């Protein structure tokens, strides 16, 4: 079973997860909403996924995230390891994060011998939405300041029409 390893246990198999610069995200009272500014897809995370994401956003190491998950949800470290790896796999696949370093083989299923009921109750879930992608991507022309009114800047010369 692949797992997130510490340097002491398995030197050279740690990895770093970083949120990409084109990703906007916010925690709204426990629901994390993520927007990919480049392609207009948005995502909603359930509670455990948001818990993991928030710690990644705060630059916690994957190992510390696993421990935090185990404590928060009262699950074994092995199950927490699977939960974190599963979400990291999904958010990397959706282009939300960069995973640098040597990544372990991703756990596709909850760890063996884990109680399936427990796993599903806390399993991190990300929902992905494509329905506003056109509007969110091509809605760049709100040149307004914080009042909401257009901010009339000093005009610059351009190279011509688009």
């Amino acid at each position: 079973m692949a797992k997130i390893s510490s340097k002491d246990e398995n030197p050279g198999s740690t990895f770093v997860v970083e949120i990409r610069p084109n990703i906007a995200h916010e925690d709204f009272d426990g629901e994390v909403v993520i927007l990919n500014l480049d392609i207009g897809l948005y995502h909603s995370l359930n509670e455990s996924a948001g818990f993991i994401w928030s710690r990644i956003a705060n630059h916690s190491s994957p190992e510390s995230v696993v421990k935090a998950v185990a404590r928060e949800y009262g699950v074994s470290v092995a199950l927490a390891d699977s939960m974190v790896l599963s979400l990291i796999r999904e958010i990397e696949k959706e282009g939300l994060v960069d995973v640098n370093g040597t990544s372990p083989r991703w756990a596709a299923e909850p760890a063996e011998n884990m109680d399936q009921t427990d796993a599903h109750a806390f399993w991190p879930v990300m929902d992905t939405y494509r329905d506003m992608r056109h509007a969110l991507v091509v809605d760049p022309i709100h040149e307004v300041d914080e009042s909401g009114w257009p901010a009339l800047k000093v005009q610059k010369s351009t190279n011509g029409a688009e």
Partner: protein
Amino acid sequence: MQRVLVSVILPVFNGERFLEEAIRSVYAQDGAPIELLVIDDGSTDSSSEIVGTVAPDARVIEQENTGPAAARNRGLSEARGEYLAFIDADDVWAPNKLSRQLHDLVDDETVDMTLSMTRCIHPDGTLAAPRFFIQFGCGLYRRRAFERVGGFDESLRFSEDLDWFARAREIGLRLSVTEDVTLHYRLHEDNLTRGTDVHDLGYLQLIKRSLDRRRARGGTEPIEMPPL
């Protein structure tokens, strides 16, 4: 009282620079009886003088500075027309915008609003290629659309128009999008501003609110924003 077919809502805040051109493009529309509603959101420049000179017949409503969403909502509350249109103080309508879009809505009673393509005006005055943007100036709306959806969310600074369209689609309003260009939208910088924290937060708030509304109605089905 003369029948008003189209109410044109023009919110302005210190818009003296291009306001005359915007107003003249409204009065250059062919045919339809219109009323022009200018909502002055507390301008301190010569915007009100320009309106008085160029559009003496316009209905001018002055209010304390509250933001464009509040200004548009004030316009909605004062509008008498069967159809509603919006123009910003620095934009320009094509001469036959209203006649073309009225034709589209009259042609199909089931469509609640019709939108068109937009050409951006670069700071040097050149026009960009036509594109479709979610913003109010390119549309013509039946009054019933606002009666069903409500007005603009005044708590959203950057995305109140996108939010309105999301709410409209969530309750199933129908819209058409045509390839005509009816709006020239003026850019004030050569690089589009994007990616500021408050700007992105506006989008995230919009998304969160849309998801919550859909859940309250029993699901999070896609709402399919245009282009359709």
